């Protein structure tokens, strides 16, 4: 656990400043020895157990991540092997904070087409490796974590149609601060880390994503009143609050606010937030949730799903 006080010094900040701007009280960060793969294995093992299937039944493993410790091979191939799913197809997705929703969209399509019977979808991040202690734009928001879901065949619809897309005109508003090769050629310089233009991202994440969320509901034929929960990417509490306000959700809809104690975990944030929401509100299980991921690219993905 890393508190605001633990990281406030290098950014000349305080617990109060961080809470006020982000709603984050603390975040989880891994030890040096623990990698994103280790987090992914733990989350996946739990998901497979809860799904009640044998790992050998998994036909594909999709990992959404931006923090695999190497550019290749994929984290997914190693994960498939660690959880006993070899020789499942395995690949990573680079869709940042929208990655998990992209993975769910692909799992849905793979199963409908008969390409796979069960698909393991994982969001796994060790973002602390890409956080700069002196960065005031995004680093202090970041946490480590992993969340996983097993998607399988069903007689009833558990995943609604996906609304997804991108806007590369804002490519440089959030992402790495320098290319890997540049850093490699400049051994005196700093390792690439994440940074963002918070104002640009905030406007897009609230007002543009509110349009996407509304359209995703329409596409699914679901009204806001029929939702049990709203699970947006946990980017910043201020984004979640303003987003919910713009959507005008009824008070009956549970809103995931996992960020307060987990920070922004990019691709892992939606499954982590959903996991906590169902744990804290077991009665929500079986209800409908609108999940929406949005982030570096810029990219976004949204779908209505049945809560596990």
């Amino acid at each position: 656990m890393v508190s605001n006080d633990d990281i406030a010094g290098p950014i000349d900040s305080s617990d109060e400043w961080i809470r006020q701007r982000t709603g984050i009280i603390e975040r989880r960060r891994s030890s040096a020895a623990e990698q994103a793969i280790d987090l992914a294995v733990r989350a996946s093992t739990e998901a497979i157990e809860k799904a009640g299937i044998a790992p050998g039944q998994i036909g594909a493993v999709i990992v959404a991540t931006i923090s695999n410790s190497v550019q290749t091979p994929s984290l997914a191939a190693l994960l498939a092997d660690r959880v006993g799913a070899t020789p499942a197809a395995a690949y990573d997705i680079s869709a940042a904070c929208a990655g998990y929703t992209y993975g769910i969209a692909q799992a849905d399509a793979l199963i409908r087409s008969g390409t796979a019977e069960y698909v393991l979808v994982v969001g796994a991040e060790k973002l602390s490796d890409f956080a700069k202690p002196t960065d005031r734009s995004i680093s202090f928001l970041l946490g480590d974590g992993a969340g996983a879901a097993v998607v399988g065949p069903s007689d009833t619809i558990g995943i609604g149609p996906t609304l997804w897309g991108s806007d590369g005109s804002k490519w440089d508003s959030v992402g790495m601060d320098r290319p890997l090769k540049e850093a490699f050629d400049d051994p005196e310089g700093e390792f690439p880390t994440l940074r963002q233009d918070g104002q640009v991202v905030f406007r897009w994440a609230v007002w543009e994503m509110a349009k996407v969320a509304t359209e995703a509901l329409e596409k699914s034929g679901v009204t806001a009143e029929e939702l049990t929960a709203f699970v947006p990417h946990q980017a910043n509490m201020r984004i979640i609050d303003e987003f919910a306000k713009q959507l005008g959700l009824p008070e009956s809809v549970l809103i995931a606010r996992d960020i307060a104690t987990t920070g922004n975990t990019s691709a892992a944030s939606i499954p982590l937030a959903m996991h906590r929401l169902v744990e804290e509100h077991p009665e929500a299980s079986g209800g409908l949730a609108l999940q929406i991921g949005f982030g570096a690219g810029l990219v976004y993905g949204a779908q209505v799903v049945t809560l596990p």
Partner: protein
Amino acid sequence: MAHTTEEVIAGLAELINEETGIAPDQVSVEKSFTEDLDIDSISMMTIVVNAEEKFDVKIPDDEVKNLTTVGEAVEFITKAQA
């Protein structure tokens, strides 16, 4: 219909009050959003988006960074709606 300078100042003061609770009489053209009114970047963007709607203008992301004082915002909005 275009708003007068006075109307834009009053409208902005109202939006700032809704977002931050700052009393409208504290908002005047010479005030800096960050230094004097202590408005953070996220609140600033919320005020900008609400101002776009209120005054029917577009305030691009790049422009927001140039609006450091209330007066600069009022000038931009007044010109943009002309």
